[in-house]
């Protein structure tokens, strides 16, 4: 494998504490190294910004609900197709791009790792086929557990060890990465036409509450010592006043401590925090509670969050929070798709237009920016758009512009039709903070990598780590004349390396690299009870056999990378 040296760039690496110093980054055999031979290919990064490849902690980029969006929204591809060009295959779609376009777009922005945030276990084969067809970036997928019959039956009796054994089995057969929870209990209740809007609402039939599900899954997660923590989309998403449910959910993590060998410190990751930080009692007095939520997270070090920034675009919402999507289609009257996934989960899909002329959308935009600006530790707050729910991931450069430039925020605020409402219902107008490139590297690289338990592998430029490197045509020594220059620079990298292979040059794809699927192989003691329960459920309830359930080997996961966890001696 070739050797490279990226010379004279301004390096931002929170892993080593490098804050824009001019330094060289050497690459050999897929890894960052101290030095390379004189024959190494030189990449001139003078006047440019060098960071590790970015890490996406939460996006919906592969699997049945993403594809349902693609199928039922042909209009999303209407004017967004890109023809075959050089290394690139044709692509299409704006909010729900094709797999190929997804890989190319992430790589061009300097992302080299991404997590699919909600895998219905029963359709893990579909998820993995799409991951396989998404070039360049390493990907993992989080199976959903928060409405799973096994989990609810075990946790009703607080059977943590059985829950852990079931999680270990499911991660192995679905090649999953982490424990995802979406509207715990509420999605199961949706199958009965109901919902759980607080952490204490009982789940019909199962006689368990969301609080018990969440706490039990934290315990099981730490019992196993998984790389990532329990990753939660709480109850009551998107409703005025939902921040109280969010705080109730966050409080469930109190007293729990992370137990793992990956350097992860949190026991709960709260995702798309923007959607969970709303005050008010209706859409008229709708207001930001970003301060209340971030105050709590700032004080409690065992929690990490991501933002879920609204980008003011036409997009496609999709979530395993089935009842929420039904609620949303009632609000905007646009087409609705709904799927029930047997014993496990559900999903809904609804197009949505975040219009700058609607006050609620503008307030959502402001809340999404308040959260990262109010978070004191950028290592615990990561930039996402909950792609495609709050906006397409291709808008990250624009979100970065808003975070790095008060001028850019003010321009947007002044362009809102209901500017006064945005200023009265949020604190965005009073916030002068502009995040630095170092903080950006924390929020998009070192932070999410640490939260995912990948700190030893990616998110930094320390020798020995994977050679995932992004070079941006952005000179930190020059004042920013126009905030749009920030967006432009972060949209298309000057160069990107993925595992030591140059995949992007001057914003164009030059290689499709060696994409890997990250999954967690957790070993537990033999548990005949759980084996029996699994067999029984397949015989009695599932519409498929166990033999057709597993995402097997080469066809589905051609290039796996397993993170090994041993919980046999717990």
């Amino acid at each position, binding site marked *: 494998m070739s050797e490279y040296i990226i010379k004279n760039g301004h390096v931002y690496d929170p892993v080593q504490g490098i804050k824009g110093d001019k330094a060289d980054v050497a690459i050999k055999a897929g890894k960052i190294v101290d030095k390379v031979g004189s024959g190494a290919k030189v990449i001139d990064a003078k006047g440019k910004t060098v960071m590790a490849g970015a890490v996406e902690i939460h996006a919906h980029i592969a699997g049945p609900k993403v594809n349902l969006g693609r199928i*039922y*929204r*042909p*209009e*999303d591809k*209407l004017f967004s197709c890109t023809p075959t060009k050089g290394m690139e295959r044709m692509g299409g779609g704006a909010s729900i791009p094709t797999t190929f376009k997804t890989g190319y777009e992430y790589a061009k922005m300097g992302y080299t790792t991404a997590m699919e945030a909600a895998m219905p276990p029963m359709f893990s084969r579909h998820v993995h086929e799409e991951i396989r067809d998404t070039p360049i970036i390493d990907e993992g997928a989080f199976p959903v557990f928060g409405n799973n019959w096994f989990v609810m039956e075990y946790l009703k009796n607080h059977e943590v060890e059985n829950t852990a054994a079931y999680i270990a089995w499911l991660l192995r057969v679905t090649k999953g990465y982490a424990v995802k929870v979406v509207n715990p209990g509420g999605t199961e209740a949706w199958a009965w036409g109901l919902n759980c809007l607080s952490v204490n609402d009982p789940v019909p039939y199962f006689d368990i509450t969301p609080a018990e599900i969440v706490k039990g899954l934290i315990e099981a997660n730490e019992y196993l010592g998984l790389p990532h923590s329990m990753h939660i989309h709480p109850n009551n998403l998107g409703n005025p006043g939902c921040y109280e449910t969010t705080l109730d959910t966050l409080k469930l993590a109190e007293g729990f401590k992370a137990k793992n060998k990956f350097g992860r410190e949190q026991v709960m990751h709260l995702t798309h925090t923007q959607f969970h930080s709303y005050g008010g009692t209706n859409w008229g007095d709708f207001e930001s509670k970003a301060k209340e939520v971030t105050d709590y997270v700032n004080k409690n070090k065992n929690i990490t969050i991501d933002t879920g920034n609204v980008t003011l675009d036409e997009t496609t919402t999709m979530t395993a929070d089935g009842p929420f999507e039904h609620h949303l289609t009632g609000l905007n*009257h*646009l*087409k609705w798709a709904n799927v029930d996934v047997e014993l496990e989960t559900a999903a809904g899909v609804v197009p949505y237009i975040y219009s700058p002329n609607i006050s609620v959308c503008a307030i959502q935009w402001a809340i999404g920016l308040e959260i990262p600006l109010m978070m004191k530790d950028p290592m615990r707050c990561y930039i996402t758009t909950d792609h495609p729910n709050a906006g397409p991931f291709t808008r990250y450069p624009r979100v970065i512009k808003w975070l790095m430039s008060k001028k850019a925020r003010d321009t947007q605020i002044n362009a809102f039709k209901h500017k006064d409402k945005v200023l009265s219902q949020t604190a965005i107008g009073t916030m002068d903070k502009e995040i630095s490139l170092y903080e950006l590297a924390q929020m998009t690289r070192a932070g999410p990598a640490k939260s995912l338990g990948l700190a030893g592998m990616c998110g930094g430029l320390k020798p020995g780590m994977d050679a995932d490197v992004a070079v941006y045509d952005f000179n930190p020594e020059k004042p920013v004349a126009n905030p749009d220059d920030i967006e432009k620079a972060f949209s298309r990298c000057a160069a990107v390396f993925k595992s030591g292979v140059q995949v992007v040059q001057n914003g164009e794809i030059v290689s499709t690299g060696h994409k890997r699927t990250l999954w967690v192989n957790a070993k537990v003691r033999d548990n005949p009870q759980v084996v029996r329960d699994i067999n029984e459920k397949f015989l009695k309830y599932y519409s498929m056999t166990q033999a057709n359930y597993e995402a097997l080997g080469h066809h589905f996961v051609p290039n796996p990378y397993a993170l090994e966890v041993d919980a046999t001696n717990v």
Partner: protein
Amino acid sequence: MDTVTITMKNPPALYLEADNVSPDAFAGKTAAQIAELHVHEGNTTSPLGKYFDVSGSAGATAAETKIIVKGDVKKVKYLGFKMSAGEMVIEGNTDLYVGAWMTGGKLLAKGNVEAFAGTAMKGGELTIEGNAGNYLGAAYRGDWRGMSGGRILVKGNAGSDIGMYMTGGEMVINGNVDVHLCTHAEGGKVIVKGNARSKVGGQMVEGTIYIFGTIETMMPGFKPNGEIELEVDGVKARFAHFIGDMGERHKKKKGQVVYANLYKKI
């Protein structure tokens, strides 16, 4: 106004996608430059000049440009695509998406046009002297935003699914229409001088339909609401009034429930 004439000299074997044939794309260009614009036949991209003779030259802006399309263009799609101003005349029959996404200007098709003419049209005037195909002034596949402004006149008949998801603008069809008129419409006005078949105004939330001839089968979701004397497109007559679609959601404006209106000439 300057005029550019393009004449088909080499008809395509497959269908030709000519989304560059519009006053906006031609504006400011000489005949030679226009002949260099891209068209697509199947997966092959070629210059316009491979298929058309180009004569004349365009005005400085779209508004100062008139295009005359001559010859056999019945296998050409997207003529007048996204045009915002100026004029265009298509002398023969043509294929899909005539004047689709147009926002202004005047487009005259002297022959018949195929489906999706005036798709998601926002403004301007589209006149079809022959017959129109299906989905005239409708939304694109999957989309919920049909014709929202401008005016369409069809002198002959039109096909099915006319005005699907229409939200504004006006359409006059001198002849007959097929099934599914104004499905899901949420605004706009459609006048049919001839007859309509079934499913007129199905799932319609707002907007107005006038039928001068017969309706083969009425939608059960439309409720009689008396008779009224109206002047429609210069014709004074008595109409039976229906409101609907009762099976759909109903918006409220200023405290009043809004229905779609269907008027049938008595």
